[in-house]
């Protein structure tokens, strides 16, 4: 109540990541002219939107003290389903999209069932699922990249003008998704229950939350979000690519953790995840614009990731 706005901002877990992001932007803006432009920022958002959307689902699951290694694979499968059904099986594109979303949700549901019904650790469930879905993708697609997509499937890759800058509908959708989940987690009972579950499943159970149902719901919803990521991916690349998403599981976890969410569950904000995803995107873009060779980009990214979180920690410590 006494907490004034700036004070509040400092004590939210997003402040640190945000500071790191701003610092990184300032640095690159000083070092290269091309960085601080509308089109370049539009580009960065396009580049992080797929991993960012995956990371929304990942955030939900990590908040429940779980982890999802299968999200990239599920997305790849979803993309193949959408494109193959639309192109090869001649299904109306919208139905193909619905089918893709359903399939992704279905894998999420299976994850959730295995986690709750047999009490398997999420790490193992989703690791197994990663292998299964990966194999299914390659078996179903027969390794063929699906091309010549109907326009509905690539609509999200189209742009509209904001001032001088072209922004894709996909970028917009991603931002809206982040806002939607920030709302759901922060301002609905369901969100509170997710946090309570992550704090302690036993406490959640004792306070009358149906923890199994909630967990299954979270995994299924995450699967659905991966389906949206699949659509974003398809619209961005213009093809259905069975090889997509192979490192996206770790990348999405990275975004979540960079965004200040605890891997032990119950603490964190989805908006932090957006910031985390942007940090990675800004580093990659900025270093490339500066002309840093690939291998040194890797080196510097490694250091910067650590630094970004260190900024966070140190800022919190000062606040103590």
């Amino acid at each position, binding site marked *: 109540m006494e907490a004034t706005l700036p004070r509040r901002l400092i004590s939210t877990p997003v402040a640190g990541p945000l500071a790191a992001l701003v610092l990184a932007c300032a640095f690159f803006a000083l070092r290269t002219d091309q960085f601080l432009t509308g089109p370049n920022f539009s580009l960065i958002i396009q580049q992080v939107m797929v991993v960012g959307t995956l990371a929304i689902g990942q955030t939900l699951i990590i908040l429940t003290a779980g982890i999802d290694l299968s999200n990239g694979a599920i997305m790849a499968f979803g993309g193949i389903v959408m494109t193959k059904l639309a192109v090869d099986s001649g299904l109306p594109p919208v139905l193909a999209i619905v089918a893709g979303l359903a399939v992704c949700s279905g894998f999420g549901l299976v994850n959730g069932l295995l986690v709750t019904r047999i009490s398997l650790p999420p790490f193992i469930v989703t690791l197994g699922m990663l292998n299964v879905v990966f194999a299914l993708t390659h078996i179903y697609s027969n390794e063929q990249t699906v091309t010549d997509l109907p326009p509905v499937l690539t609509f999200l890759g189209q*742009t509209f003008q904001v001032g001088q800058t072209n922004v894709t509908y996909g970028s917009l959708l991603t931002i809206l998704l982040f806002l939607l989940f920030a709302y759901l987690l922060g301002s609905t009972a369901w969100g509170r229950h997710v946090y309570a579950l992550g704090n302690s499943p036993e406490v959640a159970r004792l306070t009358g939350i149906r923890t199994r149902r909630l967990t299954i719901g979270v995994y299924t919803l995450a699967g659905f979000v991966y389906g949206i990521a699949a659509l974003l991916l398809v619209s961005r*690349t213009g093809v259905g690519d069975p090889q997509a998403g192979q490192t996206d599981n770790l990348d999405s976890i990275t975004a979540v953790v960079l965004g200040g969410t605890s891997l032990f569950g119950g603490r964190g904000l989805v908006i932090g995840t957006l910031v985390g995803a942007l940090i990675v995107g800004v580093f990659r873009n900025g270093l490339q614009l500066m002309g840093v060779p690939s291998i040194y980009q890797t080196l510097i990214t490694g250091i910067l990731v650590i630094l970004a979180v260190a900024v966070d920690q140190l800022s919190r410590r000062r606040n103590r």
Partner: protein
Amino acid sequence: GGGGGGGQSSSATPKVGLITKTETNPFFVKMKEGAQKSAQANGMELMTAAGKFDGDNASQITAIENMVAAGVKGILITPSDTKAIVPAIKKARDAGVLVIALDTPTEPQDATDALFATDNLKAGELIGQYAKAAMAGKPAKIATLDLAPGITVGQLRHDGFLKGYGIAEGDPSVVCSQDTRGDQAKGQTAMENCLQKAPDINLVYTINEPAALGAYTALKAKGREKDVLIVSVDGGCTGTKAVKSGEIAATSQQYPLKMAEDGVKAVSEFAKTGKKTSGYTDTGVTLITDKSVSGVEAKDTAFGLANCWG
């Protein structure tokens, strides 16, 4: 003691193993299909294995060992790490197994009994020469979308391209170089960033066709797809179609089916007669383009589509 004769398989059909770099590249899938057909035709049983990523030596070693334990007569391998695989290959050969490299030579090349492969340096050279001629003296601003550190095919093609174009490593006309791991999405991101850095890029070399298509998508988003030349390597059916529709200007086509068929045949021969093939068989590489330039030999996409894989 457990059952019969240890490593010695008593089963009637002789076995042949195929170990590819990855599971995820259509090139290798085609190779597997070719090997499967050829194995059937020659009355052999095919075993397959793959690394988890391009460069995954450990999985390939494990696969060699397990195949030897399973009693294969011969192993066909596309080495991920051309030097690091050599000791494991030696052990297999010492155990009496015929080992043939496909697609990528080992270092030294005679670490395997034989090699059936594209000449990757030449594949790069062809598109380099093509690009030089197609640019027709225009000053070039080049982006190279490479594979990943330390994988020989990537290096060979990159070097070949520069050689064919007539420039050396470090030439100022190369304004942007990025690793793509041969992945379409990563190729797109790399191209976007290169364009942000140097908007006037007009020539793009790509390690393979997925990377090329990613680059095309990025260029198209900028409205630059018409005035930028993309050259690539592979000759897969998806890629060749892209050449036909003009998205890629030219590509060096390789022939994985041939590599696999010839490889299995050689092992079958060895199983029947004990005779080992040896030496390098160039499985050939053809430049495919519909906008041919003078001085560089090329075939059109009709030929390309008739001979493409994947």
